[in-house]
C-alpha cells in the first residue's frame, strides 16, 4: 500500500507521510500547508472559499514531456490532490535575484497598492504568461477574474499583464523543465492507490477506474471528490470533518473525450476549463455557460462530473445538458447505466447515484440542424458569481411552427426545472412574438422561486420570463430557417 503523498516544491520532491507526520491531515489544504512553512508565506487567505484568488498558486502537471501550468485556488485543494504535480508559489518566481517578467511589469505599472492580493495576481499572471503569447484583453480578463483586488481598480494590473505577456513565455521554468519532468515522472511511476488512514479520516486516491469502483463498493459512504471545489467548502467554511474520501482526480479514464456520429462523450473528470476549450467550436451553448462559470482557477479544478454530482439547483451546466437531452453514464463494478440528466437529478442535491456507482462520463447527443440551443446566466456580477437565474432553451421550428421545445431553468426551484406549461403552450404554435409574450406570462406564473441573499423572488420570475424574449430575439427566421444572431 502506498501511504504517502509526493509532489515537487522548490525543485525538490517532498514526501508527506500522514501516518507519521501528525501536523497535517489528509484534507489539510495546500494553502494551510504552504502558510505553515516558514518560506512560503506569500500565499494569502482572503476567503477560504475560492472567491478571491489571494491563495492562487500554479500547478505544474506532466503533459507528455512537457509541463502545463494552471492557476488554482490553493484554499480548495487537499494535499493528496497535488500528488505527482509541481506546485509553484510566488516565492519561486524570482531567479538569481532577478524579478520574473510578470513581477517586474507589476512593479513598473503600479499593479500593487496594499499588496495583499498581489501574490495571487502574480501567480495568475504567471500561468497566463506560460500559456499565452500576446493575449487579447479578453483572455487577460478571463485569467484574472478569479482574483479580487479592493485597492487598485485593476486597470494597472491589466496593463501589467499586457506588458508582461508579449513574449513566448520563456523563463527559468523553461530552463528547468526537463529536470522537473524527470522528478514528476519518478513520482508518477507508481500507480498504486494511495491510502491515507488516520485516526479519524480515510482518504483514498486510486489511479484507475477498477480500483476506484472497488473502493466505492467497499466504502459506500465515502464522499466522492473530483475537483473538490464543492466538497472542500464543507471543511473550509463549515468546519465539518470529512471522514472518508475517494479522490477520483487522478484517474485518466475519467478524463477522456470522444466524438462519434451520435454525439460526444466527456469523461466526468474533465475539468470545466478543458471542457470549455473542447466545446468552443462544437458546442457553443455549453461554451457560453462555461465562460461565465466561476473563475479560471475554479474551472481548472472543478469537473463536469462534480457539477452534475452536486445536483445543485444553480449548477450551471445542468440546464444546457437538459436542453441537449444529455445522459450520464453510471458505472459500478458490476454494471453500467445510462440515465438522462433529468431523471438523474432527484431533488435538492439528491441524485439517482447508487452507492456503488460513479459517474464516468456524460454523453451529449448531436442535434439535428434545425434545433437551436442557447444558454443564459443572470447573476448579480457577471463573472465569478453563482446564478440567480440560468436557463437553456432548445427549439426547432418548421414553417414557423414550433416542432420541439425545451426550456430548462436553474435557480427557479429546488432543482433545475423545465417550464412545462409554457413549453406545452408553445408547442405546435407559431414562433411569434405574440405567442412568446403569452409564454412569458406562463413562465412568470409557473415558478415560485425563493428570495435569498442573491435576489428576491420577483426578480427571478421577471428575469426568467424575459430570458425567453432574449432567446426569441437572439433567433431570427430567415426564409423559414431559424438562425442564431
Amino acid at each position, binding site marked *: 500500500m502506498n501511504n504517502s503523498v509526493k509532489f515537487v516544491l522548490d525543485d525538490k520532491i517532498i514526501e508527506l507521510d500522514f501516518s507519521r507526520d501528525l501536523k497535517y491531515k489528509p484534507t489539510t489544504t495546500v494553502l494551510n500547508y504552504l502558510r505553515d512553512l516558514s518560506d512560503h508565506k506569500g500565499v494569502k487567505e482572503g476567503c477560504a472559499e475560492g472567491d478571491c484568488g489571494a491563495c492562487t498558486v500554479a500547478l505544474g502537471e506532466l503533459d507528455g514531456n512537457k509541463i502545463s501550468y494552471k492557476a488554482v485556488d490553493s484554499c480548495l485543494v487537499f494535499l493528496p490532490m497535488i500528488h505527482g504535480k509541481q506546485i509553484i508559489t510566488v516565492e519561486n518566481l524570482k531567479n538569481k535575484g532577478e524579478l520574473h517578467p510578470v513581477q517586474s511589469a507589476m512593479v513598473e505599472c503600479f499593479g500593487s497598492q496594499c499588496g495583499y492580493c498581489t501574490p495571487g495576481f502574480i501567480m495568475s499572471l504567471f500561468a497566463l504568461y506560460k500559456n499565452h503569447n500576446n493575449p487579447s484583453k479578453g483572455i487577460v480578463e478571463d485569467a484574472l477574474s478569479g482574483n479580487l483586488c479592493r485597492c487598485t481598480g485593476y486597470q494597472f494590473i491589466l496593463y501589467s499583464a499586457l506588458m508582461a505577456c508579449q513574449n513566448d513565455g520563456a523563463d527559468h521554468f523553461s530552463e528547468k523543465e526537463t529536470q522537473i519532468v524527470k522528478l514528476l515522472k519518478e513520482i508518477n511511476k507508481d500507480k498504486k492507490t494511495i491510502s491515507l488512514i488516520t485516526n479519524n479520516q480515510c482518504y483514498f486516491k486510486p489511479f484507475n477506474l477498477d480500483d476506484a469502483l472497488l473502493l466505492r463498493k467497499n466504502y459506500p459512504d465515502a464522499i466522492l471528490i473530483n475537483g473538490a471545489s464543492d466538497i472542500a467548502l464543507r471543511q473550509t467554511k463549515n468546519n465539518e470533518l470529512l471522514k472518508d474520501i475517494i479522490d477520483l482526480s487522478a484517474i485518466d479514464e475519467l478524463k477522456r473525450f470522444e466524438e462519434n456520429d451520435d454525439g460526444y462523450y466527456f469523461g466526468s473528470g474533465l475539468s470545466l476549463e478543458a471542457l470549455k476549450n473542447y466545446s468552443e467550436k462544437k458546442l457553443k451553448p455549453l461554451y457560453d455557460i462555461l465562460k461565465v462559470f466561476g473563475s479560471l482557477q475554479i474551472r481548472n479544478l472543478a469537473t463536469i462530473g462534480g457539477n452534475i454530482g452536486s445536483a445543485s439547483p444553480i449548477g450551471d451546466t445542468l440546464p444546457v445538458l437538459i436542453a441537449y437531452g444529455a445522459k450520464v453514464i453510471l458505472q459500478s463494478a458490476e454494471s453500467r447505466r445510462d440515465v438522462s440528466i433529468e431523471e438523474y437529478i432527484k431533488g435538492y442535491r439528491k441524485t439517482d447515484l447508487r452507492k456503488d456507482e460513479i459517474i464516468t462520463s456524460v454523453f451529449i447527443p448531436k442535434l439535428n440542424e434545425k434545433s437551436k440551443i442557447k444558454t443564459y446566466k443572470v447573476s448579480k*456580477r457577471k463573472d465569478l458569481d453563482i446564478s440567480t437565474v440560468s436557463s437553456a432553451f432548445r427549439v426547432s421550428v418548421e414553417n414557423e411552427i414550433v416542432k420541439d421545445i425545451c426550456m430548462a431553468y436553474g435557480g427557479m426551484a429546488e432543482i433545475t426545472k423545465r417550464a412545462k406549461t409554457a413549453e406545452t403552450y408553445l408547442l405546435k404554435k407559431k414562433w411569434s412574438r405574440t405567442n412568446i409574450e403569452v409564454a412569458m406570462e406562463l413562465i412568470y406564473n409557473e415558478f415560485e422561486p425563493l428570495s435569498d441573499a442573491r435576489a*428576491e423572488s420577483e426578480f427571478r420570475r421577471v428575469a426568467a420570463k424575459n430570458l425567453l424574449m432574449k432567446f426569441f430575439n437572439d433567433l431570427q427566421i430567415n426564409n423559414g430557417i431559424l438562425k442564431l444572431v
Partner: protein
Amino acid sequence: MQEHESAILHCTGEAVFINDMPVSENLLIGHVIYSKHAHAKILEIDFSDAVKLKGVHSILSYKEIPGINQMGPIIHDELCMVENEVTSIGQAILLIAADSKEIAIEAEKLIEIKYEPLEAILSIESAIEKYNLLAPKRKIERGNLQKGFEDSAHIIEGTLKTGAQEHWYLETQICLCIPGEGNEIKAYSSTQHPSETQAIIAEVLGISSKDVEVEVKRIGGAFGGKETEANHIAAWCALLCNATKRPVKIHLFRDDDQIITGKRHRFLSKYKVGFNDEGIINAYSVELNSDAGSATDLSMAILERAMLHADNSYFIPNIKIIGRAYKTNMPSNVAMRGFGGPQAIAVIETAIDKIARYLKMDSAEIRYKNFYKIENNNISPYGQCIENNRLFILFDKLIKSSDYIKRREEINEFNKSNEFYKKGMAITPVKFGISFTTSFLNQAGALVNIYKDGTVLVNHGGTEMGQGLNTKILKITSKELGIKLVKIKVNATNTSKIPNTSATAASSGSDLNGMAVKNAIETIKSRLSEFVVDEFRKKYEGICSKKHNIKFENNFVYDIKIPERKISFNELISNAYLNQISLSSTGYYKTPNIGFDREKGQGKPFHYFAYGMAVSEVIVDTLTGYNKILRTDILHDAGDTLNKGIDKGQVIGGFIQGTGWVTTEDIKWDSDGHLLNHSPDTYKIPTIQDIPEDFRIELLEGYPNENTIRKSKAVGEPPLMLAFSVWLAIKDAISAVGNHEFEPDFSLPATNEVILLSIEKIRKLQKEPA
C-alpha cells in the same frame, strides 16, 4: 516615476503582513465568540466543558477585564465585551485562547449561551418611526427656505435610500500581541489609528499608555474599516495576551469579519428642491438620516461630513440641511472612504438628475448652471468660501475630451433603434473638503533620524495601507534632503516613536504627515546649515556664506551664491556628528486657520477642496438588468501630484470601489438582523471584468495647491464619488426605455434587480392608456 516603495516586496511575496510574522512556538490563537442575536438578554453562559478541552488556555468574559470595559473611540458607549445584554449581532461575549484555530472552534461547539430575545430595531425606517435618535439632530442652513420654494417655478420631492457597503479589505482584521516585562505589551495591529489602539488597550487592561506599544508596518487594505474596528480586535487580543502571558494572535475569518464589523452607513434621505425654468436651483432642503448601529463610534462625524457635502459642487442660495443619526440594533457602522460624503452627494445628484428629466434637458447642463461660481455665489452653506474653484476647468476639458456632445447624439440614435439594449451617460462632479472636521485632529508628528553613514530613517504617525503614503514620504524626504531614495527608509509606524497621532484617514495622510516630516527635516537642516556656514568660514576666504543660501541637492550641500563651496552630504553628516551636532529631530504640523462651530453650523472646516469629474457611458440589457460600463473618462485634481502612478492608482481604485457600491455591492439582512451576504460568495465587489471597457484617467495638470506639502492635494477619498457617473448613466439608460418620459424608480446600489424591476415598471406605465 518612483514605484510604490513596497512594490517589489509585494510582487515577490516577501512583504511581511502581521499574519506572516514569525512568532515563537508558544503563540496562541485567539477566537471571538460573538452574539447571534440583534437584541437579547443573556441568561446563561456555560463554558465549563470548553475550558477543559485540551489545548484551550483561557476563556474570558467581561468579568475578567482588568480595566474599563469600553472601546468607544469618542463617546464611551461601546462595551469591549458584552455584560448582560447584547445590542447587536457580532458583539463579543467570550474570548478563547487556544493552541490552534481548530481547537478554538471545537471549544466553541461546547459553549452554550442562552438568550432571551428582545425587540430589535433592524431598519432605519423603524428607527425613524420610533424616533430612536443617537444624538440631537444637527442643522446647517442659509437663506430663507420657505421663500426660496415660493419663488421657485418648480418643486420636486423625493426620498433616496443608499445602501451599506462592506470594506472588503483583502486582509481581514488582525492583531498580534506579545507580552513584555510586568505590564508591558506590544501589539502589532492592522490599525489606521495606532494611538487610539494604544489608548484602548491601555484602558481595557487598566494600565497606562506608556506600557503599550502599537506597531503598524503595513495594512492589507483598510478604507476606513480599520479606523476604529481594528481597536476592537486589538483590545480582545490584548486581553487574551494579558490573561495567558503568551503571544496571542486574532485573525478574523472572512465571514466573521463581515458579520462582526460595521459598514458604510445606510442612509434614508428626504429631499425637496425648488428651481426655475432654466434648471437653476433656488431652494433645497434635505434630511439625512443615517443608521448608526448600536453605538456612536464615528457616526456623528460621518453625519457631519455628509451634511457638509450636501451641496456637492453647487451653489444653492436657500438651503437647509438636517442630519439625524439613529440608533439601531445593527453592528455599529463605521468610517468608510468618503465618510458620509458619498451618501449626501448621492441625494443632490439625484435631485439634479430629476430636474433634468423634468425639464427635458441634459443633466450636464443643469449641473453646469448650478456650479459654484468664481467671483460671487461662491460661499458654501456653512460659510466657507469655495476658493480655487476647478469645476469649470474640469467641466470644459472633460466635455471636450470625452466627446460628450457627439456621444450623446449617438446614444440617442442607438436607443431609438434598439428595443432591448439601452445606453446611458452621465457626467458628475465631486468637490470634497479636505481636513478632519473635528479641527484638533488636524495635527501630525514625525521623527527623522540621520545616521552617521548618511542614511535616514523617517518615522511618522501615518499608516501605510496601500495608498502610497510611505512612497510619498520617501519622495518628500529625498527632495528636502537632496539625497537618493535608497538612502532613506520609512519605519514602521510605532506609538513609541510618534505619540498622540490622529488616524490615517480623511485623505489627510500625506498632507499632515508629509508636513510633519518636512518640518523635522527643516530643523535638522537648519542645524546643519549653521554648521556648514561655520565649516565654509574656516575653509574658504572671503565673505561668509549665509545660512539661508545653503542648499541640499544631488547628495551635496552647497552655497547657492558661491557653488564652489560644497561638501558631500555624507561627509557633512560625519563631520557634524564629530562636532556634536544633533542629527535627529521631531517635527510637528497642524493645519492652519481652520475651525468649525458645530452648534451654529458655520465656519471653515476645510483647509481646501479637492475636485474631480467623470463621464461614464453604460449599456443596459433591459431584459435582465445586466449592465456594462462602456467608457469612463475621469479628470481629477490632485494639485501638483507627488507621484502620478500612486495618485492615478488612488483615482482608479476609489472610482471602482465606488462603482461597486453603486452597482453590485448589495447587502441584505434577514428579519432577525442576520447578515445574508457574509462572504464573497454573495457579496460582490467588482472584478477586473467590471471596470470600464474604455477607461481614461487623467490628472489635472498645471494647477498647484498652495499651502500644502509640495503643492499637492489629498486624493484618497474624492474619486470614490465619481462613481455616481456610472450610477446615473444606468438611470439614464433605464429612462431611455420610456423615452425619458417617466421618472424611473431608482436606489443605490442599482443592482440588476433594481434595474430590471424599474424597467418593468416603466414598461407597464407605457402600456397604460394615458
